[in-house]
């Protein structure tokens, strides 16, 4: 089960996230629990594998939004980095960056068990 302490260790700004959730820790945790299932991760991975930078940008941009709203700062920063490169449609291998982001997702997912 995800705890505030776990999230702080993963680089989240939980005070800010809880404030955004009207001060409800329970509500914040409920929303954070939904993050590993976010389809944006799969969409981003697929789009990058297919070389579709437009779709990849949309996926990264949407993901960035939800990560930011929950102040999952470490994941947000990584996602922002990817988003800005994709915004410029930078021609590069995105796989390492996306893999890093997916690893962070997996870390969070592991805490749900």
């Amino acid at each position: 089960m995800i705890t505030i302490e776990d999230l702080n260790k993963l680089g989240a700004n939980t005070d800010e996230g809880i404030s955004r959730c009207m001060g409800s820790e329970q509500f914040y945790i409920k929303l954070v629990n939904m993050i590993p299932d976010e389809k944006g991760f799969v969409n981003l991975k697929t789009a990058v594998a297919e070389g579709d930078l437009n779709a990849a940008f949309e996926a990264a941009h949407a993901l960035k939004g939800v990560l930011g709203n929950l102040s999952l700062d470490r994941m947000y920063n990584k996602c922002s980095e990817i988003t800005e490169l994709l915004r410029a449609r930078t021609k590069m291998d995105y796989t390492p960056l996306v893999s890093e982001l997916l690893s962070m997702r997996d870390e969070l997912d592991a805490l749900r068990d």
Partner: protein
Amino acid sequence: MDNFVRSSRKKRRVLMVDDEQINRELLEAILSFNYDVDSAVNGKEAMDMLRAAEEPYSLLLLDLLMPVMSGFQVLEACKEDEELAKIPIIVMTSEKSAEVRSIKLGADDFITKPYRMPEVILARCERIIELSEERALIRDLEKDKLTGLYKEDFFFAYIRRMETNSRRRRDAVVLRVEGFKDIEKTIGTEKTNLMLRKIADSIKAEVSVSKWMGCYSGSGVFFAYCNHRDDYEDLIGNTRRAVSEQFGDFALKAGVYEKVDKTIDPEVWFERAGSVIADIAEGSCTAKYQ
């Protein structure tokens, strides 16, 4: 009295649109503090809900990048719809460039992503709704209910505001239904009102094409303020013929004060235009103030 007003006021209903469930849940939790909240997952669903709503939503909160129909497309669609254009819209975006574009498309404000603190969001929503309701009140008060044209006070106030820095040459036109009282006695009030509406519609048609401003002054008298044109015979004649087809023949005369002197009061322009109607020659329907 204040407590009575507060307790009898229904909670306002807002619609928020975002394709991300987490964003929807978060925003709904914040907005539910003050409002009843409906949500949509894309622009198309939002448009369906806006159109089907029994009572207009007090506010639309709109994400921009969405599948099926984007927030930009929703903004454009709302702008084209007379009723939906009255609903205030706050867009939600992390993109600076999108802020400017969405304001230009008619959005009233924006909320940045990641969201600011709930208190900030609620305060912005409240303010935008207040402004919108004040605008709606003015819209209700400024127009004559029968013709849909401006009432005199608002007509002159808007002219003054419009002309503060304008150098355009404009004409003041007074249109008068001759023998209005007799017509009303003959065909009855209901038919007379329909006739007045038809004349007003003709003026409104010119509003969209030639940027007229129209006013119904009462007793069969209309004011129109428009960019200068050399001749009004055809326009007045066509209006009279179109209305006569439906309501029987009548005389519609117009006095024109051309290229108004903007150093004098607008009310005087229309007095001058009206003063020459009596001098209209046989066979004509317009006269110009010299």
